[in-house]
């Protein structure tokens, strides 16, 4: 049960991972593991479901990029509903990161999809003056970003409504992911007044490159706050809340990630914690960081073999789709963990 619980949002990404997302309509009932609220949401917003899935996917890709040289490298398994394995079942830093980056990815992708015009429900809501449809002609639209955040909030947080600590943690981390998008929007302006002067100036917020969000979330992963679970008795029963473990550290803000269980060390395979171990992972001999052979292999040592690889070289690139290259052979030393 636990496994399915944290899986559904992520499974969206797998189910459609290699199909052309944009062209196929999504059947809501075919997505495994949706709670009723999400199912309802999916049916109402079926137009943007492909972008929700795409968002989770770019979140996971970013996770894998950010953790590429680490013991835990955001590995996904494709044959399982819980694509990360049991890693996310524990309330660890890794879970916190994955939730935050996935919810940021959803907000990001939905905002982007709105700009592509792939959904009619984006942006322009009826909060503006005038009768529906006229609002746009009177005062334009609201920002797509708000809509992207709303979708992410509605969808990703839909299942995090229990009064337990894990829900509280997920809610917090999801929100942190979305806030990071909002905080990294940058303002661009254009002057178009008399003779192009700044007498009239129009500004708009642009979304950053998702890598920027990834870098930022990675920092937040490194400085995530450890919490402890507190139980209160309220009218609706026992409620679990989170409190910072160390009072002498600054309490976490809205943008910080929180967790309350320590991570396994991910050195040895362990089906219980979801660790795949680092055996056979390639390591960097010259690095003294976490991707160096010493640390990545957890002191077990490494094997070295020499590989001749055929590579493309002296290439001519076009901006798209075309590379004309020669083929060169280069010799590499490949180090893998024992």
């Amino acid at each position, binding site marked *: 049960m636990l496994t399915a619980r944290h899986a559904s949002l992520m499974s969206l990404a797998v189910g459609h991972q290699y199909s052309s997302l944009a062209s196929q309509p999504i059947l809501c009932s075919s997505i495994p593991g949706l709670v009723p609220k999400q199912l309802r949401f999916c049916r109402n917003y079926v137009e943007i479901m492909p972008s929700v899935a795409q968002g989770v996917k770019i979140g996971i890709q970013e996770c894998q990029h950010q953790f590429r040289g680490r013991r835990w490298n955001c590995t996904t398994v494709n044959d399982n509903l819980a694509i990360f394995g049991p890693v996310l079942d524990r309330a660890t830093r890794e879970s916190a990161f994955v939730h935050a980056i996935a919810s940021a990815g959803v907000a990001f992708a939905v905002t982007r999809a709105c700009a592509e015009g792939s959904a009619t429900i984006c942006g322009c809501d009826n909060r503006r003056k005038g009768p529906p449809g006229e609002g746009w002609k009177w005062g334009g639209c609201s920002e797509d970003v708000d809509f992207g955040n709303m979708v992410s909030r509605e969808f990703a947080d839909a299942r995090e409504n229990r009064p337990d600590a894990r829900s509280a943690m997920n809610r917090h981390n999801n929100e942190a992911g979305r806030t990071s998008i909002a905080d990294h929007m940058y303002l661009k302006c254009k002057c178009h007044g008399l003779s192009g002067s700044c007498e009239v100036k*129009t500004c708009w917020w642009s979304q950053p490159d998702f890598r920027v969000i990834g870098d930022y979330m990675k920092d937040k992963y490194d400085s995530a706050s450890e919490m402890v679970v507190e139980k209160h008795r309220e009218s609706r029963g026992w409620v679990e809340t989170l409190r910072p473990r160390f009072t002498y550290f600054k309490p976490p803000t809205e943008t910080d990630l929180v967790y309350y269980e320590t991570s396994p060390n991910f050195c040895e395979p362990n089906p219980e914690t979801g660790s795949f171990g680092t055996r056979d992972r390639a390591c960097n001999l010259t690095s003294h960081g976490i991707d160096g052979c010493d640390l990545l292999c957890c002191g077990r040592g490494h094997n070295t073999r020499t590989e001749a690889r055929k590579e493309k070289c002296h290439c001519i690139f076009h901006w798209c789709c075309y590379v004309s290259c020669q083929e060169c052979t280069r010799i590499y030393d490949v180090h893998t963990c024992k």
Partner: protein
Amino acid sequence: MAGAIIENMSTKKLVILGVLLLLFQAFSFMVGGLIAPSPTTAIHYMATKCVDNVKGHHQAKKWFVPWGPKKCDKIRDFEEAMAKRIEANNIVFAVHIPMPDKEMSPWFQFMLVILQFDIAFKMHNQIEDGAMVTVDVGLAYRDSTVSEWTEMAHSVELRKLSCNFTTAKTIENEGRHYECDVLPFMEIGSVFHKYYLLNIRLPVNERKKVNVGIGEIKDIRLVGIHQNGGFTKVWFAMKTFLTPSILIIMIWYWRRITMMSRPPVLLEKVIFALGISMTFINIPVEWFSVGFEWTWMLLFSDIRQGIFYAMLLSFWIIFCGEHLMDQTERNRFSMYWKQVGPIVFGSFCLFIFDMCERGVQLTNPFFSIWASDVGTELAMAFIIVAGICACLYFLFLCFMVYQVFRNISGKRSSLPAMTKARRLHYEGLIFRFKFLMLVTLACAAMTVIFFIISQVNEGHWHWGDYTVQVNSAFFTGIYGMWNLYVFALMFLYAPSHKRYGDEQSSGDQVGNSGEDIQLTTTITHVDGPTEVYKMMGKEAQE
């Protein structure tokens, strides 16, 4: 004898007038801040990458629509294109303006589109220095969702990529995006159709070095900016209301001048000209843009504004010059060539610049003078010359204002020697004269302050349930302010009628002696100088 109304008006009436004008001023700010929406809207468009499967280019031009029933075959990213062996020349970036379920409206007045490339850093495919992008772009429109697209414009444009990569250019940072400046892309002066479609190609030709070395383009983003319909309506309403107000006071003013026995003096003519140029701006010809496709409206309103600004600046110079109270005979426009020259020359430069930019855009909406190096230099040259002219003008103006005030204080020092009644009278006159100078300064300061506020502010303030649109308030408020300024000027500086009634006050009779005829100030010998100047002149003699 008589002067302008301001000199013969009682302080009480002056205060009443001031309060009335202030009320109108507050009203014009409120119209913009509370009724109108923000002046413009910017909408993001992410170009859809369509695949042109049509072999050969001999058949009729095909338009690629990003969504809707006849949407094109699209690809999500260029890895997909690579796998499917699609060439760069067969990829069309399609953008439909506006978004689904919306339509454009003539009330939007104008539309400009800004281009932004998302270019990923690749070690082996970096952006070369001074890389130029060649954009083959077509613009089409239609007025119903089912009809065919009609071509509006087609052009091959060059744009200079100015991108920088802030992090280290290492293999780890591959895939990060460059930070690219936004590029001006398109500008149309009337949004007459409901739907617009842009098809952009980036053709590659290795031999001619076209689109080579521009990095790995990931996406094309456009930002469409148009004026909000609500703002246009409020603006038109304001113009429609202001036109008759200024027109009536203008007619009244000119009637008063022609009723006098003497020909009008320079200052009076200049004030009248200011009124004409204000009316020229006010006349709401823009109403026609709702019914006709007049793309030149944008250029036309630039010209109208330019004429008004030039007129206002000339007026200030002449206003100061005619109040200098030195012994020089002015009252001729040619006396001011040195000061008005820079204004005319500077405005002319900006006019040429505007013709080069918005004028050419009438035929090719994708033209931008900033796109080519020569154009940029030319444009910069025009702007710098205009800037120098502006500086020169302000130096002249400041010097003249300084001279006027120096002369006033010089005359003032002799005030205590006069009788009490006369002194009070004169002091009142000096006050009123300075009052108008201060009003001008206040107006200018208000303009500058509001301009700064609207520049630094994000555009709207929340006050409980109310949202105040600061930018709209700025436009309507400042526009209203200069209208009120011109209105007040024509009213207060119209010749007074009191001379037809009581040939008044002791001071005048004394002043009619020969000595102040040689002083020759603003208002000709026929009518004699206005009280202020005459009094000033007299004191100097005393």
